[in-house]
């Protein structure tokens, strides 16, 4: 693709990013549910070259998943209703984790629960496991009857749950949010105040597709989660909104196919990105995103990804926000007063600092 002879003399771009306690060599992660438990694609993707591998959401008990049809292609994307099929905690810990460790990946384990108590038990069991750099809490599965995106789209519930999870691990805690909410910014603030190290914006959008001959859903359930390039503009906006609302890093996700897509998310404030559905089409998609991202930045003389991050963040009057925010959401005002990318990195919100201290205690 690139001529190595000339390019290799040019300085490398520093792509390293920090997500809470995690130092990632680059900002490209695989999205949960699109890269298996990490080893399925390992013969075509050297895992250590990625920023991190976010594994398929694991629940306390194994889940068989929803009946077929689980997938429907739509314009520029796909709907899925997999239903969190997974091997369950015990097998994840005894079989998947050792394998993934041996492959040298930076591991972020995705966990999902129907209640705060289930998440506590999961994190309690996995929180001290060696080799897990962080946990992504799946607060946003659209395809399960209980404990899915709707249940978790309540700021106080998120905040309280994260506050209970925070002491259970020294690893990073990422909160993956649903886009189907009134304000993803409000949910992000709740996560920050609960002690999350980062939020992931966003999971799939709830959608429908019909089979007109049968006059029923193409899927076995009425709705599914929409992913793929069809959602990229929507996800980009949600990511931007979250990044404006909080000081903790936001990880952009939704329809990223190329390095340029990823750079759009980072330009509106994302600290890192996740490549998801693209991996279904090209198993090496995450690597390609990384290579394209680096080539683009190098060509423009951008030496550090941090200098790119937030460089296209819209100013306050360019976005539609509620001027009469409730007192509980004051954190937004503080962030807005000082939101240049450089300062955003240096300052931590009081809630975040508290969370970190209590963890060490």
């Amino acid at each position, binding site marked *: 693709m690139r001529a190595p002879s000339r390019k290799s003399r040019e300085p490398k771009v520093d792509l390293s990013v920090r997500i809470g306690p995690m130092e990632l060599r680059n900002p490209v992660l695989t999205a949960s549910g699109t890269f298996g438990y990490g080893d399925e694609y390992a013969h075509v993707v050297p895992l250590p070259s990625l920023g991190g591998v976010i594994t398929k959401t694991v629940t306390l008990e*194994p889940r068989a998943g929803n009946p077929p*049809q689980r*997938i429907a*292609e739509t314009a520029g994307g*796909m709907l*899925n209703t997999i239903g969190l099929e997974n091997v369950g905690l015990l097998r994840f810990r005894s079989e998947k984790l050792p394998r993934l460790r041996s492959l040298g990946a930076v591991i972020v384990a995705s966990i999902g629960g129907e209640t705060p108590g289930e998440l506590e038990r999961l994190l309690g069991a996995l929180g001290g496991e060696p080799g897990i750099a962080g946990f992504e809490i799946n607060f946003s599965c659209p395809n399960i009857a209980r404990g899915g995106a709707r249940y978790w789209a309540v700021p106080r519930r998120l905040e309280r749950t994260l506050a209970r999870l925070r002491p259970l691990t020294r690893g990073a805690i990422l909160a993956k949010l649903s886009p189907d909410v009134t304000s993803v910014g409000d949910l992000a603030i709740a996560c920050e105040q609960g002690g999350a190290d980062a939020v992931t914006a966003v999971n799939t959008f709830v959608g429908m597709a019909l089979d007109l001959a049968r006059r029923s859903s193409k899927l076995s359930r009425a709705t599914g989660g929409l992913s793929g390039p069809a959602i990229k503009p929507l996800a980009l906006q949600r990511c931007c909104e979250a990044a404006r609302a909080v000081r903790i890093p936001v990880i952009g996700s939704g329809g990223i196919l190329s390095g340029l897509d990823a750079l759009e998310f980072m330009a509106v404030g994302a600290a890192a990105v996740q490549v998801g559905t693209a*991996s279904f089409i090209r*198993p090496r998609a995450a690597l390609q995103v990384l290579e394209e991202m680096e080539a683009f930045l190098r060509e423009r003389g951008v030496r550090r990804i941090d200098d790119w991050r937030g460089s296209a963040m819209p100013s306050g009057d360019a976005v539609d926000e509620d001027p009469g925010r409730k007192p509980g959401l004051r954190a937004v005002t503080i962030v807005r007063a000082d939101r240049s990318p450089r300062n955003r990195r240096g300052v931590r919100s009081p809630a975040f600092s508290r969370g970190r201290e209590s963890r060490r205690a």
Partner: protein
Amino acid sequence: MTVAVSAWRQVRGRVDQQADFGAGHRWLELRVTAELEPPDPGQFIQLLIPSHASGAFLPRPMSVASVRPLRDGLMLGFLYVPIGVGTHALAALPAGAEVEALGPLGRGFPLDRPGTPVLVAGGRGVAPLLFAAESLARLGRRFELLFGARDRAHLVGLDEARRRVAGRGRLHLSTDDGSAGIKGTVVEALDRLSPRPDHPMVIHACGPHAMLAAVARWAAERRVTAWVAMESVMACGTGVCRGCPLARSARGRAAFGSQPPSLLGNRDYAMCCTEGPVFDSRDLDWERIE
């Protein structure tokens, strides 16, 4: 963990030629690079059409109808019908157009099982069985090929089928309207091949699911093993997305019972892409298959 190290790769392919094949069918010859391992009969390839040439987003799983070694790769043959956006876009690709090929995927027909192989093809389901017939002929094995369709025009690939059985087996045609072979279905053609205890048969079938269900029933009643090549909507084709489950029968659940869930599936569902697309017909719950 239970799956051997995956051998599939995604490689560049180039359309060598495409031709009309009658009754709306197309035959595609795709030249792929040598990193792609040669597929076995019944395995499939995910064909990804460049986005500028297709409204389809996902790759299309296609069973392989022929494989020819080249000096620097393989020539893969595919028989398909343009139905949706993906296959229409594929049909419009001229010679020289690029198509990415991911494979070989899934598990093919176990042609090495003892007994006379009886290949049962319904309509364009003949595609992987043309490949199976070719393999059997190369191995010097005798086989029967039953080929059914709604009418003579829809016995697409009939000449290829004839060439492959020449000297190695017998071709039994059936059509719904009686315009070729016997008037009736492939199951009625099966009836005429009564199994003999001294010559056990093993069925390898591909066609519409309703036909496969009928073949499964026929085989179960006669204690004949039938391997059926299933279809499903798929996204990744490699077991990662979990998008192509097929419900297991009680026997299928029992057979899977002690295994941990894996790329192949779990106790309730088999993944069509990894455990299949070829299944022992007794392992699937035909009541829950559309």
